[in-house]
Protein backbone atom coordinates (compact mmCIF):
# COMPACT_ATOMS: atom_id res chain seq x y z
CA UNK A 1 0.00 0.00 0.00
CA UNK A 2 1.45 3.30 -1.02
CA UNK A 3 -1.09 5.73 0.43
CA UNK A 4 -1.05 7.03 3.99
CA UNK A 5 -3.62 5.57 6.39
CA UNK A 6 -5.31 8.41 8.34
CA UNK A 7 -6.22 6.84 11.66
CA UNK A 8 -8.66 9.58 12.67
CA UNK A 9 -10.84 8.61 9.73
CA UNK A 10 -10.79 4.91 10.59
CA UNK A 11 -13.45 2.89 12.33
CA UNK A 12 -12.15 1.61 15.64
CA UNK A 13 -15.60 0.23 16.44
CA UNK A 14 -14.73 -2.41 13.82
CA UNK A 15 -11.75 -3.63 15.85
CA UNK A 16 -13.97 -3.83 18.92
CA UNK A 17 -16.63 -5.72 16.98
CA UNK A 18 -14.06 -8.34 15.95
CA UNK A 19 -12.74 -8.49 19.53
CA UNK A 20 -16.20 -9.02 20.99
CA UNK A 21 -17.28 -11.66 18.46
CA UNK A 22 -16.67 -15.25 19.66
CA UNK A 23 -13.51 -16.44 17.89
CA UNK A 24 -12.09 -12.92 17.48
CA UNK A 25 -10.97 -12.42 21.10
CA UNK A 26 -7.29 -13.21 20.54
CA UNK A 27 -6.53 -10.67 17.81
CA UNK A 28 -4.82 -8.24 20.24
CA UNK A 29 -2.25 -10.92 21.08
CA UNK A 30 -0.67 -10.55 17.62
CA UNK A 31 2.89 -9.15 17.82
CA UNK A 32 3.21 -9.13 14.03
CA UNK A 33 5.94 -11.78 13.72
CA UNK A 34 4.56 -12.91 10.35
CA UNK A 35 4.66 -16.67 11.02
CA UNK A 36 1.12 -16.81 9.60
CA UNK A 37 2.09 -15.13 6.33
CA UNK A 38 5.24 -17.24 6.01
CA UNK A 39 3.29 -20.47 6.44
CA UNK A 40 0.19 -19.59 4.41
CA UNK A 41 -0.25 -21.65 1.19
CA UNK A 42 -2.47 -18.95 -0.32
CA UNK A 43 -0.06 -16.11 0.48
CA UNK A 44 2.68 -18.11 -1.20
CA UNK A 45 0.80 -17.92 -4.51
CA UNK A 46 -1.35 -14.80 -4.32
CA UNK A 47 -0.10 -11.43 -3.05
CA UNK A 48 -3.66 -10.26 -2.37
CA UNK A 49 -3.95 -12.52 0.66
CA UNK A 50 -1.57 -11.56 3.44
CA UNK A 51 -2.58 -12.77 6.93
CA UNK A 52 -0.28 -10.45 8.90
CA UNK A 53 -1.51 -7.45 6.94
CA UNK A 54 -5.15 -8.45 7.43
CA UNK A 55 -4.67 -8.52 11.22
CA UNK A 56 -3.00 -5.10 11.11
CA UNK A 57 -5.80 -3.67 8.95
CA UNK A 58 -8.41 -4.86 11.45
CA UNK A 59 -6.46 -3.39 14.36
CA UNK A 60 -6.20 -0.07 12.48
CA UNK A 61 -9.97 -0.06 11.98
CA UNK A 62 -9.87 -0.37 8.18
CA UNK A 63 -13.38 -1.76 8.03
CA UNK A 64 -14.38 -1.12 4.42
CA UNK A 65 -10.95 -2.03 3.06
CA UNK A 66 -11.25 -5.43 4.77
CA UNK A 67 -14.94 -6.26 4.34
CA UNK A 68 -15.16 -5.09 0.72
CA UNK A 69 -11.90 -6.73 -0.33
CA UNK A 70 -11.35 -9.82 -2.49
CA UNK A 71 -8.99 -11.23 0.10
CA UNK A 72 -11.52 -11.60 2.90
CA UNK A 73 -12.85 -14.71 1.05
CA UNK A 74 -9.45 -16.23 0.24
CA UNK A 75 -8.61 -18.19 3.40
CA UNK A 76 -8.27 -21.87 2.42
CA UNK A 77 -9.11 -22.87 5.99
CA UNK A 78 -6.04 -25.12 6.25
CA UNK A 79 -5.24 -24.02 9.84
CA UNK A 80 -1.49 -23.84 9.19
CA UNK A 81 -1.38 -20.27 10.57
CA UNK A 82 -3.39 -21.32 13.62
CA UNK A 83 -0.89 -24.10 14.36
CA UNK A 84 2.27 -22.05 13.72
CA UNK A 85 1.20 -18.86 15.53
CA UNK A 86 3.30 -18.41 18.70
CA UNK A 87 0.59 -16.23 20.24
CA UNK A 88 -2.48 -18.42 19.66
CA UNK A 89 -4.21 -15.68 17.69
CA UNK A 90 -6.36 -18.30 15.88
CA UNK A 91 -6.33 -16.52 12.53
CA UNK A 92 -8.41 -19.17 10.72
CA UNK A 93 -11.20 -18.44 13.20
CA UNK A 94 -10.67 -14.67 12.89
CA UNK A 95 -11.10 -15.03 9.11
CA UNK A 96 -14.42 -16.78 9.78
CA UNK A 97 -15.41 -13.90 12.09
CA UNK A 98 -14.52 -11.36 9.36
CA UNK A 99 -16.53 -13.25 6.71
CA UNK A 100 -19.49 -13.51 9.10
CA UNK A 101 -19.32 -9.75 9.78
CA UNK A 102 -19.17 -9.04 6.02
CA UNK A 103 -22.30 -11.18 5.50
CA UNK A 104 -24.10 -9.37 8.34
CA UNK A 105 -23.35 -6.12 6.45
CA UNK A 106 -24.88 -7.56 3.28
CA UNK A 107 -21.56 -8.38 1.59
CA UNK A 108 -21.36 -11.99 0.48
CA UNK A 109 -19.29 -13.78 -2.14
CA UNK A 110 -21.65 -15.11 -4.84
CA UNK A 111 -20.30 -18.65 -4.38
CA UNK A 112 -21.41 -18.62 -0.74
CA UNK A 113 -24.77 -17.11 -1.69
CA UNK A 114 -25.32 -20.07 -4.02
CA UNK A 115 -24.27 -22.58 -1.36
CA UNK A 116 -26.63 -21.02 1.20
CA UNK A 117 -29.56 -21.32 -1.22
CA UNK A 118 -28.72 -24.89 -2.25
CA UNK A 119 -28.37 -26.02 1.36
CA UNK A 120 -31.60 -24.26 2.32
CA UNK A 121 -33.46 -26.12 -0.44
CA UNK A 122 -31.73 -29.48 -0.52
CA UNK A 123 -29.83 -29.82 2.75
CA UNK A 124 -26.54 -30.33 0.89
CA UNK A 125 -24.25 -28.25 -1.33
CA UNK A 126 -25.01 -30.56 -4.25
CA UNK A 127 -28.58 -31.37 -5.09
CA UNK A 128 -29.36 -35.11 -5.13
CA UNK A 129 -31.21 -35.72 -8.39
CA UNK A 130 -33.15 -38.80 -9.55
CA UNK A 131 -30.21 -39.54 -11.82
CA UNK A 132 -27.89 -39.70 -8.78
CA UNK A 133 -30.16 -42.02 -6.83
CA UNK A 134 -30.55 -44.28 -9.89
CA UNK A 135 -26.79 -44.47 -10.28
CA UNK A 136 -26.41 -45.14 -6.57
CA UNK A 137 -28.97 -47.93 -6.87
CA UNK A 138 -27.04 -49.54 -9.73
CA UNK A 139 -23.90 -49.49 -7.60
CA UNK A 140 -25.73 -51.03 -4.65
CA UNK A 141 -25.62 -47.80 -2.60
CA UNK A 142 -28.68 -46.64 -0.61
CA UNK A 143 -30.77 -43.75 -1.99
CA UNK A 144 -30.56 -40.32 -0.33
CA UNK A 145 -33.25 -37.79 0.46
CA UNK A 146 -33.62 -34.93 -2.03
CA UNK A 147 -34.89 -32.30 0.35
CA UNK A 148 -34.69 -31.59 4.04
CA UNK A 149 -37.50 -29.55 5.61
CA UNK A 150 -35.45 -28.97 8.79
CA UNK A 151 -33.04 -26.72 6.87
CA UNK A 152 -35.55 -23.94 6.19
CA UNK A 153 -36.53 -24.06 9.85
CA UNK A 154 -32.87 -23.96 11.00
CA UNK A 155 -32.17 -20.91 8.83
CA UNK A 156 -35.24 -19.18 10.28
CA UNK A 157 -34.26 -20.05 13.85
CA UNK A 158 -30.75 -18.61 13.51
CA UNK A 159 -31.85 -15.58 11.48
CA UNK A 160 -29.96 -16.51 8.31
CA UNK A 161 -32.86 -15.35 6.23
CA UNK A 162 -32.86 -14.58 2.54
CA UNK A 163 -30.48 -11.71 1.96
CA UNK A 164 -29.68 -10.03 -1.33
CA UNK A 165 -26.06 -8.99 -1.69
CA UNK A 166 -25.53 -5.22 -1.75
CA UNK A 167 -22.82 -5.28 -4.41
Amino acid sequence: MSSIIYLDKKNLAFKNLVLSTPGGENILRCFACGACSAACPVREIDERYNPRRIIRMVLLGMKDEVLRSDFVWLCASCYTCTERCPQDVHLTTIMRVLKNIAVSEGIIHPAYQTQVETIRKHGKIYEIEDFDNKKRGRLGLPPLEKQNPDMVRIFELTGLTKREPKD
Partner: protein
Amino acid sequence: MNPYALFLGCTIPVRAQNYELATRKIAAVLNIPLLDIDNFTCCGFPIDSVHHKTSLLMAARNLALAEQNNANLCTICTACTGMLTETNLVLRDSATQRDEVNQKLRELGMEYRGTVEVKHFVRLLIEEVGFKALQEKITRPLNALRFAPHYGCHYLKPTAIYSGFDSDENPQTLDQLITLTGAESISYEEKLSCCGGALLAIDEGLALKISKKKLDNLIANRVDAIVLICPFCSIMYESNQRKIESTFQTEYHLPVLYYPQILGLALGIEPKELGFNQNRVRPTAVLEKLGV
Protein backbone atom coordinates in the same frame (compact mmCIF):
# COMPACT_ATOMS: atom_id res chain seq x y z
CA MET B 1 -18.09 -51.86 19.28
CA ASN B 2 -20.90 -49.29 19.35
CA PRO B 3 -22.36 -48.90 15.88
CA TYR B 4 -21.13 -46.02 13.76
CA ALA B 5 -23.45 -44.09 11.49
CA LEU B 6 -21.74 -43.45 8.14
CA PHE B 7 -21.76 -39.69 7.59
CA LEU B 8 -21.42 -39.08 3.86
CA GLY B 9 -21.72 -35.28 3.71
CA CYS B 10 -22.37 -33.48 0.40
CA THR B 11 -19.58 -34.49 -1.96
CA ILE B 12 -19.25 -38.25 -1.48
CA PRO B 13 -22.77 -39.41 -2.44
CA VAL B 14 -22.65 -37.71 -5.86
CA ARG B 15 -18.97 -37.25 -6.68
CA ALA B 16 -16.99 -39.91 -4.81
CA GLN B 17 -19.02 -43.09 -5.04
CA ASN B 18 -15.80 -45.10 -5.47
CA TYR B 19 -14.74 -43.89 -1.99
CA GLU B 20 -18.13 -44.78 -0.54
CA LEU B 21 -18.13 -48.23 -2.17
CA ALA B 22 -14.62 -49.04 -0.96
CA THR B 23 -15.36 -47.79 2.58
CA ARG B 24 -18.54 -49.87 2.87
CA LYS B 25 -16.76 -52.93 1.46
CA ILE B 26 -13.84 -52.63 3.92
CA ALA B 27 -16.25 -52.14 6.83
CA ALA B 28 -18.17 -55.26 5.83
CA VAL B 29 -15.02 -57.36 5.46
CA LEU B 30 -13.67 -56.18 8.84
CA ASN B 31 -17.03 -56.52 10.63
CA ILE B 32 -17.34 -52.82 11.43
CA PRO B 33 -21.08 -52.19 11.66
CA LEU B 34 -22.05 -49.04 9.71
CA LEU B 35 -25.52 -47.60 10.07
CA ASP B 36 -27.26 -45.47 7.41
CA ILE B 37 -29.29 -42.47 8.54
CA ASP B 38 -31.00 -40.98 5.51
CA ASN B 39 -31.78 -37.50 6.81
CA PHE B 40 -28.29 -36.29 7.63
CA THR B 41 -27.61 -32.97 5.91
CA CYS B 42 -24.47 -31.02 5.06
CA CYS B 43 -22.20 -31.05 8.14
CA GLY B 44 -22.34 -27.22 8.31
CA PHE B 45 -18.76 -26.50 7.19
CA PRO B 46 -19.53 -24.34 4.11
CA ILE B 47 -22.02 -22.26 6.11
CA ASP B 48 -19.44 -21.52 8.83
CA SER B 49 -17.95 -18.82 6.59
CA VAL B 50 -21.36 -17.22 6.24
CA HIS B 51 -23.08 -17.59 9.60
CA HIS B 52 -21.35 -19.45 12.43
CA LYS B 53 -24.47 -20.00 14.54
CA THR B 54 -26.23 -21.69 11.63
CA SER B 55 -23.32 -24.04 10.96
CA LEU B 56 -23.18 -24.91 14.66
CA LEU B 57 -26.88 -25.77 14.64
CA MET B 58 -26.56 -27.84 11.45
CA ALA B 59 -23.68 -29.81 12.95
CA ALA B 60 -25.58 -30.21 16.25
CA ARG B 61 -28.64 -31.53 14.39
CA ASN B 62 -26.50 -34.18 12.68
CA LEU B 63 -24.93 -35.15 16.02
CA ALA B 64 -28.39 -35.34 17.61
CA LEU B 65 -29.62 -37.63 14.81
CA ALA B 66 -26.75 -40.03 15.51
CA GLU B 67 -27.51 -39.88 19.23
CA GLN B 68 -31.21 -40.66 18.61
CA ASN B 69 -30.05 -43.79 16.79
CA ASN B 70 -27.64 -44.74 19.61
CA ALA B 71 -24.78 -44.46 17.17
CA ASN B 72 -21.41 -42.77 16.91
CA LEU B 73 -20.41 -40.90 13.77
CA CYS B 74 -17.99 -42.20 11.17
CA THR B 75 -16.96 -39.50 8.71
CA ILE B 76 -15.02 -40.00 5.49
CA CYS B 77 -14.65 -36.35 4.45
CA THR B 78 -12.02 -34.49 6.46
CA ALA B 79 -13.97 -31.19 6.45
CA CYS B 80 -17.00 -33.00 7.92
CA THR B 81 -14.64 -34.60 10.46
CA GLY B 82 -13.35 -31.19 11.56
CA MET B 83 -16.74 -29.48 11.67
CA LEU B 84 -18.49 -32.28 13.60
CA THR B 85 -15.57 -32.93 15.98
CA GLU B 86 -15.23 -29.26 16.84
CA THR B 87 -18.97 -28.74 17.35
CA ASN B 88 -19.13 -31.87 19.49
CA LEU B 89 -16.38 -30.50 21.78
CA VAL B 90 -18.00 -27.06 21.98
CA LEU B 91 -21.33 -28.59 22.96
CA ARG B 92 -19.74 -30.93 25.50
CA ASP B 93 -17.59 -28.28 27.14
CA SER B 94 -19.90 -25.26 27.20
CA ALA B 95 -23.24 -25.56 28.97
CA THR B 96 -24.19 -22.10 27.68
CA GLN B 97 -23.63 -23.04 24.03
CA ARG B 98 -25.32 -26.42 24.53
CA ASP B 99 -28.40 -24.79 26.08
CA GLU B 100 -28.57 -22.21 23.31
CA VAL B 101 -28.33 -24.90 20.62
CA ASN B 102 -30.79 -27.21 22.38
CA GLN B 103 -33.32 -24.43 22.68
CA LYS B 104 -33.36 -24.29 18.87
CA LEU B 105 -33.11 -28.06 18.38
CA ARG B 106 -36.24 -28.47 20.53
CA GLU B 107 -38.12 -26.48 17.90
CA LEU B 108 -37.26 -29.37 15.57
CA GLY B 109 -38.29 -31.91 18.22
CA MET B 110 -34.66 -32.80 18.93
CA GLU B 111 -32.03 -32.53 21.63
CA TYR B 112 -28.30 -33.21 21.86
CA ARG B 113 -26.91 -34.57 25.13
CA GLY B 114 -23.31 -34.91 23.98
CA THR B 115 -22.84 -38.70 23.92
CA VAL B 116 -21.61 -39.17 20.35
CA GLU B 117 -18.02 -39.92 19.30
CA VAL B 118 -16.92 -38.56 15.91
CA LYS B 119 -14.18 -40.43 14.05
CA HIS B 120 -12.84 -40.44 10.53
CA PHE B 121 -13.03 -43.97 9.07
CA VAL B 122 -9.25 -44.11 8.92
CA ARG B 123 -9.01 -43.32 12.63
CA LEU B 124 -11.64 -45.97 13.25
CA LEU B 125 -9.46 -48.52 11.43
CA ILE B 126 -6.50 -47.55 13.60
CA GLU B 127 -8.29 -47.38 16.95
CA GLU B 128 -10.97 -50.05 16.61
CA VAL B 129 -9.15 -52.59 14.41
CA GLY B 130 -5.48 -51.69 14.86
CA PHE B 131 -2.42 -51.68 12.61
CA LYS B 132 -1.38 -55.21 13.61
CA ALA B 133 -4.79 -56.81 13.07
CA LEU B 134 -5.04 -55.07 9.69
CA GLN B 135 -1.60 -56.24 8.64
CA GLU B 136 -2.43 -59.83 9.55
CA LYS B 137 -5.35 -59.78 7.12
CA ILE B 138 -3.27 -58.75 4.09
CA THR B 139 -3.47 -61.45 1.41
CA ARG B 140 -2.27 -59.48 -1.62
CA PRO B 141 0.72 -57.38 -0.54
CA LEU B 142 1.19 -54.22 -2.61
CA ASN B 143 5.00 -54.56 -2.61
CA ALA B 144 5.47 -53.28 -6.14
CA LEU B 145 3.87 -49.90 -5.47
CA ARG B 146 5.09 -46.47 -4.36
CA PHE B 147 2.41 -44.18 -2.95
CA ALA B 148 2.41 -40.56 -1.82
CA PRO B 149 0.22 -40.03 1.25
CA HIS B 150 -1.91 -36.88 1.27
CA TYR B 151 -3.41 -36.35 4.72
CA GLY B 152 -5.75 -33.41 4.09
CA CYS B 153 -5.69 -30.44 6.47
CA HIS B 154 -8.80 -31.18 8.49
CA TYR B 155 -7.76 -34.74 9.33
CA LEU B 156 -4.93 -33.22 11.40
CA LYS B 157 -5.83 -29.61 12.18
CA PRO B 158 -6.71 -27.74 14.30
CA THR B 159 -4.73 -30.12 16.54
CA ALA B 160 -6.59 -28.81 19.61
CA ILE B 161 -9.71 -30.76 18.60
CA TYR B 162 -7.98 -34.09 17.87
CA SER B 163 -6.37 -34.69 21.30
CA GLY B 164 -2.92 -35.72 20.11
CA PHE B 165 -4.13 -38.27 17.51
CA ASP B 166 -1.40 -37.43 14.99
CA SER B 167 1.18 -34.68 14.45
CA ASP B 168 0.35 -31.84 12.07
CA GLU B 169 4.02 -31.20 11.25
CA ASN B 170 5.14 -34.81 10.97
CA PRO B 171 2.06 -36.98 10.54
CA GLN B 172 2.49 -40.75 10.57
CA THR B 173 -0.87 -42.53 10.63
CA LEU B 174 -1.61 -42.60 6.89
CA ASP B 175 2.02 -43.53 6.15
CA GLN B 176 1.70 -46.46 8.55
CA LEU B 177 -1.60 -47.53 7.01
CA ILE B 178 -0.04 -47.48 3.53
CA THR B 179 3.09 -49.31 4.68
CA LEU B 180 1.11 -52.17 6.24
CA THR B 181 -0.34 -52.98 2.80
CA GLY B 182 3.21 -53.74 1.66
CA ALA B 183 3.43 -50.59 -0.48
CA GLU B 184 6.05 -47.90 -0.01
CA SER B 185 4.81 -44.62 1.49
CA ILE B 186 7.11 -41.87 0.31
CA SER B 187 8.19 -38.69 2.00
CA TYR B 188 8.05 -35.63 -0.28
CA GLU B 189 8.53 -31.90 -0.04
CA GLU B 190 4.87 -30.94 -0.56
CA LYS B 191 3.54 -33.68 1.74
CA LEU B 192 1.88 -31.24 4.14
CA SER B 193 0.50 -28.81 1.60
CA CYS B 194 -3.20 -28.01 1.32
CA CYS B 195 -5.21 -29.05 -1.78
CA GLY B 196 -6.80 -25.60 -2.08
CA GLY B 197 -10.28 -27.14 -2.30
CA ALA B 198 -11.98 -24.55 -0.08
CA LEU B 199 -11.17 -21.92 -2.70
CA LEU B 200 -12.37 -23.78 -5.80
CA ALA B 201 -15.74 -22.01 -5.92
CA ILE B 202 -14.24 -18.69 -4.76
CA ASP B 203 -11.27 -18.32 -7.09
CA GLU B 204 -10.75 -21.30 -9.37
CA GLY B 205 -7.45 -20.12 -10.86
CA LEU B 206 -5.92 -19.69 -7.41
CA ALA B 207 -7.22 -23.06 -6.18
CA LEU B 208 -5.78 -24.83 -9.24
CA LYS B 209 -2.38 -23.19 -8.71
CA ILE B 210 -2.34 -24.48 -5.13
CA SER B 211 -3.11 -28.05 -6.31
CA LYS B 212 -0.56 -27.82 -9.12
CA LYS B 213 2.33 -27.41 -6.65
CA LYS B 214 1.71 -30.83 -5.15
CA LEU B 215 1.08 -32.54 -8.49
CA ASP B 216 4.38 -31.13 -9.87
CA ASN B 217 6.22 -32.39 -6.82
CA LEU B 218 4.67 -35.87 -7.10
CA ILE B 219 5.59 -36.25 -10.76
CA ALA B 220 9.18 -35.41 -9.82
CA ASN B 221 8.99 -38.19 -7.22
CA ARG B 222 7.72 -40.80 -9.72
CA VAL B 223 4.95 -42.28 -7.56
CA ASP B 224 2.34 -44.76 -8.74
CA ALA B 225 -0.47 -42.77 -7.15
CA ILE B 226 -1.40 -40.24 -4.53
CA VAL B 227 -3.40 -41.81 -1.70
CA LEU B 228 -5.88 -39.65 0.18
CA ILE B 229 -8.83 -39.71 2.56
CA CYS B 230 -11.00 -36.73 1.64
CA PRO B 231 -13.35 -36.35 -1.34
CA PHE B 232 -12.60 -32.67 -1.81
CA CYS B 233 -8.86 -33.24 -1.98
CA SER B 234 -9.67 -35.79 -4.69
CA ILE B 235 -11.83 -33.27 -6.57
CA MET B 236 -8.76 -31.04 -6.71
CA TYR B 237 -6.17 -33.66 -7.64
CA GLU B 238 -8.29 -36.00 -9.76
CA SER B 239 -11.43 -34.28 -11.10
CA ASN B 240 -9.48 -31.10 -11.84
CA GLN B 241 -6.26 -32.77 -13.02
CA ARG B 242 -7.16 -32.34 -16.70
CA LYS B 243 -8.04 -28.69 -16.13
CA ILE B 244 -4.71 -28.09 -14.37
CA GLU B 245 -2.94 -29.85 -17.25
CA SER B 246 -4.61 -27.70 -19.89
CA THR B 247 -4.39 -24.43 -17.93
CA PHE B 248 -0.68 -24.80 -17.21
CA GLN B 249 0.36 -26.76 -20.34
CA THR B 250 1.60 -29.76 -18.43
CA GLU B 251 0.84 -33.46 -18.11
CA TYR B 252 0.47 -35.69 -15.08
CA HIS B 253 -1.79 -38.73 -15.66
CA LEU B 254 -1.34 -39.33 -11.95
CA PRO B 255 -3.82 -41.80 -10.41
CA VAL B 256 -5.59 -40.55 -7.29
CA LEU B 257 -6.75 -43.32 -4.96
CA TYR B 258 -8.66 -43.39 -1.70
CA TYR B 259 -7.01 -45.30 1.13
CA PRO B 260 -9.89 -47.81 1.45
CA GLN B 261 -9.39 -48.64 -2.24
CA ILE B 262 -5.75 -49.67 -1.76
CA LEU B 263 -6.46 -51.41 1.56
CA GLY B 264 -9.18 -53.35 -0.27
CA LEU B 265 -6.72 -54.47 -2.95
CA ALA B 266 -4.34 -55.65 -0.24
CA LEU B 267 -7.19 -57.55 1.43
CA GLY B 268 -7.73 -59.42 -1.83
CA ILE B 269 -10.93 -57.65 -2.89
CA GLU B 270 -11.60 -57.21 -6.60
CA PRO B 271 -10.95 -53.70 -8.02
CA LYS B 272 -14.50 -53.33 -9.34
CA GLU B 273 -15.96 -53.85 -5.86
CA LEU B 274 -13.71 -51.01 -4.69
CA GLY B 275 -14.88 -48.59 -7.36
CA PHE B 276 -11.62 -48.62 -9.36
CA ASN B 277 -13.58 -48.45 -12.62
CA GLN B 278 -14.92 -45.08 -11.52
CA ASN B 279 -11.61 -43.35 -11.02
CA ARG B 280 -11.32 -40.56 -13.59
CA VAL B 281 -7.56 -40.89 -14.00
CA ARG B 282 -7.44 -44.57 -14.89
CA PRO B 283 -5.31 -46.48 -12.39
CA THR B 284 -4.57 -49.15 -15.02
CA ALA B 285 -0.80 -49.15 -14.42
CA VAL B 286 -1.32 -49.62 -10.67
CA LEU B 287 -3.53 -52.66 -11.23
CA GLU B 288 -1.20 -54.08 -13.89
CA LYS B 289 1.74 -53.96 -11.47
CA LEU B 290 -0.33 -56.11 -9.13
CA GLY B 291 -1.49 -58.41 -11.90
CA VAL B 292 -5.18 -57.81 -11.15
